[in-house]
């Protein structure tokens, strides 16, 4: 009753019992049960396939969002960088943080080792806040290094300074552009070159040199090759 081919399982193998058992082992699951199990397995497999798609879409969206956000926040220079740029040269070198923003104006316009000239904004700043916010180089010369590193005025009124600067910038943007002296002399858009030249000549003859030069500047902007069409009488 034992299987001689498997010596290690001699005492647990019984061929007669196995044969008897296999003879009677003919029960099968009902077809409806088979169908139900197969259907369930198919549903789960399908769900899994579609389940992966939103995950991929979500990952792509997050990636895109992060990229856009980084781009948006990277374009504007950090506040610290703006303050540094608007401060006089000695203060810039002492207050600047170890890791500057790559696109900040302070880097673009004031490379390492070069002392930046105070900008219009800095001048405006000093005009608005007085000498405490933007001290002159003469003042800096006599100031101890520790004080220059952390000017108390900047520390105390940093927020107010930024607000004032932003307000001034907005005011400048919204202000009307200054009209040129020859504004009234500029011919209409469809006027021929000869009309421009005639007016320039008339202004020169009338002794209005400033207006004539102004109009000539606009004429050169308007026409690419003015010398070719300039009549001999107005050619300089």
């Amino acid at each position: 009753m034992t299987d001689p081919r498997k010596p290690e399982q001699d005492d647990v193998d019984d061929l007669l019992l196995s044969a008897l058992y296999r003879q009677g082992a003919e029960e099968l699951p009902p077809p409806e049960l088979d169908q139900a199990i197969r259907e369930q397995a198919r549903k789960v497999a399908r769900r899994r396939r579609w389940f992966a798609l939103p995950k991929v879409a979500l990952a792509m969206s997050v990636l895109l969002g992060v990229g856009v956000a980084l781009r948006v926040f990277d374009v504007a220079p950090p506040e610290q960088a703006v303050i540094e740029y608007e401060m006089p040269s000695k203060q810039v070198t002492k207050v600047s943080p170890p890791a500057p923003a790559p696109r900040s104006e302070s880097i673009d316009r004031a490379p390492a080792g070069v002392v930046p000239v105070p900008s219009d904004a800095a001048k405006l700043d000093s005009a608005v806040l007085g000498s405490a916010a933007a001290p002159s180089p003469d003042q800096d010369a006599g100031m101890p290094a520790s004080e220059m590193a952390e000017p108390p005025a900047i520390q105390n009124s940093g927020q107010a300074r930024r607000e004032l600067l932003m307000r001034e910038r907005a005011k400048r943007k919204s202000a009307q552009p200054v009209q040129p002296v020859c504004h009234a002399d500029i011919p209409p858009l469809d006027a021929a070159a000869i009309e421009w030249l005639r007016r320039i000549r008339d202004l020169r003859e009338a002794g209005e040199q400033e207006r004539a030069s102004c109009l000539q500047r606009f004429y050169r902007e308007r026409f690419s090759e003015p010398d070719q069409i300039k009549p001999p009488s107005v050619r300089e």
Partner: protein
Amino acid sequence: MKWYRDGDADAFNRLYARYRAPLYRYVLRQCAGCPEADELYQDVWLRVVRARGQWRASQPFRPWLYRIAHNRVVDHWRAKGQAHEDFEEQEAPDATPLQEMLAHLRDCVARLKELLGYLPAAQRDAFLLKEEAGLTLAQIAEVTGTERETVKSRLRYALKRLRDGLEGCDD
């Protein structure tokens, strides 16, 4: 199984066709003809479907499948308030009354099936894992979470009891 795990629904049909009959009989005999046999069988397959992500290509599928089935059967017995191991301590029915009880059975096959139902659960489990699943002693030990020698012992006892009950069928 790897294909099904990776989303190929048809792979499950091939897998199911191969294992449906032996697994069904394994559950049926473990349950000893209880009305929940179909439910248990279906539940085993659903567990396989749910746990497909846990299956590793390095491990053979058959022992993994029967481990799930074994655990499900043990859970069933526990839910019924009877520990799987309790049966091991049970005394096998006396051979003589058993023979009398089975005297009316027409053939030895039917008697064997009947005798299987009287076996302690752990012995029946080992016997079915060997006969139906075709697992080795080591694999049975792995599936049931026991030692190889324990499996061997259980099988020895199971065969002895079955032989005793099937006296007269060996000619």
